[in-house]
């Protein structure tokens, strides 16, 4: 019983990190209708960023995470501005291949810079582990889960309670409407992309003390973020958060019955099951059920 409890709590905390990675992808996907294939690689930028700053102690670590997040956001901004923006009018294929190629380039760049796999940093937190009723949780895992939750709440506040969030949601719900009320769509897109990439980099920084980093990790995280977004559904940010926690739990409890690589395959199998049964995602906002089908009208901007 305590094994299950142990795995469930580990899975829950891991799931919160997946939620944080997932909402970055969710924002970019719902606002721009672009799946950023390089999303997991922005997590890598966060991980390697913190790793190369070599923080000693708690506050340097937090500082390194912030620096890595700003770095990730800056790279994201530049990618959107220089590579993706011009192709948005042409439909999906070019962004897809550009972000995929970008991910590959980032992966192999880190492969050249850090040929050693599974690098990590020592526990930066001032405490070691929490034990309660037979369940032990290491400090980095606990802190990463809690900080992820705080950030998820902050992002949801930003999206649902502030003016910027209203503008972002406006662009997501009706691009035509956003253009007609004079929103600078390009700027919103750049900011959203930067925000999504920044969140991915923060998650990477928090993940580093728990999970040693290798360049190949980026792809796996991209897929997981995508699974989280698809299962959560495009209706609400909370669907993505719930799906992240679900993925973490499924992975942790799956490892009880299956060896490592097979557990991963199991997660992908579950994912296919979900899209077979509910391709619209598990959580669908009530309003979107009665909304008329989307039209694909074209509008001129700029």
């Amino acid at each position, binding site marked *: 019983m305590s094994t299950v409890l142990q795995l469930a709590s580990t899975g829950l905390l891991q799931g919160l990190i997946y939620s944080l990675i997932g909402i970055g992808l969710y924002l970019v996907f719902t606002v721009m209708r672009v799946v950023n*294939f390089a999303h997991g690689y922005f997590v890598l930028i966060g991980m390697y960023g913190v790793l190369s700053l070599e923080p000693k102690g708690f506050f340097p670590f937090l500082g390194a995470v912030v620096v890595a997040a700003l770095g990730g956001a800056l790279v994201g901004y530049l990618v959107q501005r*220089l590579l993706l923006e011009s192709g948005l009018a042409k439909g999906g294929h070019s962004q897809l*291949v550009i972000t995929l190629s970008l991910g590959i*380039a980032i992966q*192999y760049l880190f492969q050249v810079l850090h040929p050693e796999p599974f690098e990590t940093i020592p526990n930066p937190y001032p405490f070691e582990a929490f034990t309660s009723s037979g369940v032990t949780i290491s400090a980095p895992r606990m802190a990463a889960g809690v900080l992820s939750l705080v950030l998820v709440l902050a992002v949801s506040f930003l999206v649902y309670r502030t003016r910027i969030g209203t503008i972002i949601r406006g662009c997501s719900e009706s691009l035509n409407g956003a253009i007609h009320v004079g929103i600078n769509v390009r700027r919103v897109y750049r900011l959203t992309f930067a925000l999504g990439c920044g969140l991915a980099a923060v998650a990477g920084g928090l993940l580093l003390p728990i999970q040693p980093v290798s360049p190949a990790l980026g792809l796996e995280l991209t897929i997981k973020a995508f699974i989280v977004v698809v299962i959560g559904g495009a209706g609400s940010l909370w669907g993505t958060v719930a799906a992240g926690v679900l993925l973490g739990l499924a992975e942790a409890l799956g490892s009880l019955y299956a060896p490592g690589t097979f557990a991963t395959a199991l997660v*992908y199998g579950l994912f*296919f099951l979900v899209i077979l049964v509910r391709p619209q995602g598990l959580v669908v906002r009530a309003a979107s059920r009665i909304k008329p089908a989307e039209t694909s009208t074209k509008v001129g901007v700029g």
Partner: protein
Amino acid sequence: MTLRNPLRYLDTPLRRVNAVVVTVALLFALVYPYLVPPPMVGVGFVALLYALRNFTWNIAGGYVGQLSLSHIVAFGTGAFSVAVLTWRHEVNAWIALVVGVLISAVVGFLISLLMSRFGVNAFFLALGTLALSLAAAGVAASWTFLGDTNGISYSGSEEGFAHLMWYIDPSGFYYTTLGFLVVITIGIAALMRFTHFGRSLPFIREDPVIAASMGIKVVRNQALAMALSMGLTSIAGTLIAQYVQIVSYESVLTVEIGVAMMVGSIIGGAGTLAGPIVAGIGIAVLEEFLRSFAVSSANVSSYTQIAYAVVVILLLRFGTGGIMPLWEAGVRRVFGTGRKPVAPAAAEPVGELVDGRVG
């Protein structure tokens, strides 16, 4: 269809130039093994294999626009079918090849039907098929039937075309691959030109909604194209397995293979007949060229991957369609179009954003 003078196809300078280039390239490909030492014949085999694999990816990825990464599974299926059936159970390699083709085709048909539940959405297709490939790699890595982490090694003694195996001289592999490439290229060219199914494929890519309204069965034709494409990709997997004589999940089920197919087709020109072949051979030559520098082999593959990525990003960013469209434009500029000048079409409005789903 009566057989008329075939030379009537060579009515424009572009077609005449292309006919000359194709003839010269084929003749060169035929005599190539006699001109170079055996190791370089191996390089030639790898080049043709890249060309074959890009070409078969292009059937679904280029003509229909299904940017699929499930072709990794097809490639792996081809390799594992020969490893399990021929190496373990001494079934003839050609039968194993056919089995691999059939399994891959069925998987391709099903995955295309499954992903069509998202509508025609390139992102979902690409990420869903990527998840499938990672799942397949996970299964292969943990299942002893597929050699888990150790892989399966070749064991056998027969040699020759009937067994699809040559030990010392790779020219057998070279000519077999060349044969497959030529037959498949001619077959697909005929399919695209003469059949209703073939002609419907670029139509589906350009506008699935109008295609459906014209009575084309979009989902069915997409699934059939995917089945054809993945089935033929499996042949490349079988050939490489026989050539390197070891198969493991790390060697045939990696994402890099899928990306190489996609990227190769796009660099050459997705949806063109010759582009994927030209790019495949070009990439193999480039890799060999990089290897001749004194860089460690691990870094060679890293640098080539970065180079592919940068080339593809630049190609897409600046809106060129790859090598073949550039070549065609170049030939037309040098030799003229051979047609009467027509009034230029109105320029498309620029700076558009498409509302609604990406598609």
